[in-house]
């Protein structure tokens, strides 16, 4: 289904959704930084900036409680979180690179163990994508096979039009349902032209060749030159739309506390630190190697996909200027 929505009606749609109790999550300015956050009013949405963090946290929060406990005498009381209480959500203004990562996460969280926390949120969320009209030289979605108008992962997709308003196209029942729920705000598609799409400069990688090299080069001196400079923070993983490692910790005292799940990053020294004191990835290049391997080999081995959508966040935010696009490009030029 293809529709048109004017800028004015778009605002009205968001306000209406908020009013009816739907959680509307969209890019929003938070203490100076644009993040995907629940809106209190449509006017808060910031449509023209790529948020610092990806949209994955609508389903996979930075940190969430999964259980709490309290001990009285010999009695222990456990309280579970009921996923049924998660609110209906519309995730709106999602960039194609962020939206394209959602199916990638779906695969992980529903593969062996079904993560009800993730899946229940996923079920209750309608994803509204937004076509990209600007790019910088860190953007490389096209290099990993995603276009600035990629609709993968979106239930509904918005393309901004010359002269304002959006062309809306639904790609799922959820998308259609969203249009139908407020059909008065939508009109038939106009002939207006869409704004020109962004044009990332990076050339398309030969991902097969990259994987082929990775398949053979777990041990390679190149890793040292690639990642000696890595300082081992988690910035790249935490801003990545596709990274999905997490940790589970109990916080509190012996008497009372909560079990929480929170993001983890393979760059951390503690990530593979064993209780014995042994650490199989004892040096930073080995940890960084895991990041590349996971994205371009392991995930492909398991799910046939690449774990990178080319959003470029890790490139922009790496404290020491590590450039994953440059690295993959370099690998793609190596002899297999």
């Amino acid at each position: 289904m293809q529709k048109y929505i004017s800028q004015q009606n778009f605002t009205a749609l968001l306000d209406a959704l908020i009013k009816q109790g739907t959680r509307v999550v969209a890019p929003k300015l938070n203490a100076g930084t644009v993040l995907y956050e629940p809106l209190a009013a449509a006017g808060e949405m910031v449509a023209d900036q790529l948020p610092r963090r990806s949209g994955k946290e609508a389903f996979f929060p930075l940190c969430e409680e999964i259980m709490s406990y309290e001990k009285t005498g010999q009695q222990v009381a456990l309280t579970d979180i009921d996923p049924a209480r998660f609110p209906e959500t519309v995730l709106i203004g999602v960039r194609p690179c962020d939206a394209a990562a959602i199916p990638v996460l779906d695969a992980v969280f529903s593969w062996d163990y079904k993560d009800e926390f993730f899946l229940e949120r996923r079920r209750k969320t309608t994803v509204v994508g937004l076509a990209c009209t600007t790019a910088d030289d860190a953007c490389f979605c096209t290099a990993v096979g995603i276009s600035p108008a990629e609709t993968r992962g979106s239930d509904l997709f918005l393309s901004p039009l010359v002269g304002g308003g959006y062309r809306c196209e639904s790609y799922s029942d959820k998308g259609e349902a969203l249009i139908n729920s407020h059909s008065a705000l939508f009109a038939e598609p106009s002939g207006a032209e869409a704004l020109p799409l962004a044009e990332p400069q990076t050339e398309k990688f030969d991902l097969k060749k990259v994987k082929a090299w990775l398949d053979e080069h777990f041990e390679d001196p190149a890793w040292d030159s690639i990642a000696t400079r890595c300082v081992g923070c988690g910035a790249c993983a935490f801003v990545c739309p596709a990274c999905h490692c997490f940790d589970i910790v109990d916080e509190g005292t012996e008497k009372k506390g909560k079990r929480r799940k929170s993001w983890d990053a393979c760059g951390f020294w503690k990530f593979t630190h064993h209780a014995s004191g042994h650490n199989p990835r004892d040096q930073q290049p080995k940890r960084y190697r895991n990041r590349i391997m996971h994205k371009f080999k392991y995930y492909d081995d398991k799910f046939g996909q690449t774990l990178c959508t080319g959003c470029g966040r890790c490139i922009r935010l790496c404290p020491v200027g590590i450039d994953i696009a440059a690295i993959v490009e370099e690998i793609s030029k190596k002899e297999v």
Partner: protein
Amino acid sequence: MHPEKTSHTFEPKVIAFVCTWCTYAGADLAGTSRMQYPSNVRVLKFPCTGRIDPVFILKAFQQGADGVLVSGCHPGDCHYIAGNFHARRRFAVFRKLLEFVGVDLNRLQFSWVSAAEGGKWVEVVTDLTERVRAMGPMTEFKELALEEQWSGVIDTPELKEAFSQI
């Protein structure tokens, strides 16, 4: 003989970090002298104020303390030569940091109480307790402890309020 006890609606929680040689002994003396003071204070004994890590103060506030007292030997009286001098510097700096992040320093008291100053112990504890009582509960850290990240929250009051406004 004893002053009238008044009942209060708010009983603050006051945590005292004290050194064993001077202030703990001073508090003992207050006891042996049967002096009376509010029952809100909980005393943690350290060998020396030099052992008191600023993190403990932070931890105390996080655990719900409404007031924190750090007390040790007067300068020059340290059982360990200079532990209290090191502590003095450390806390001079730490309190400025807490102040800067928005902790009201009226909730954080430092004092020198010697083993002979049972009366001073009573005075310091009473003053702090009553001051904190007048200020009301220390809500900052408690509220913080209740907050999860946004995406983990099911229904935040903020969200509810925002909805009701539309």
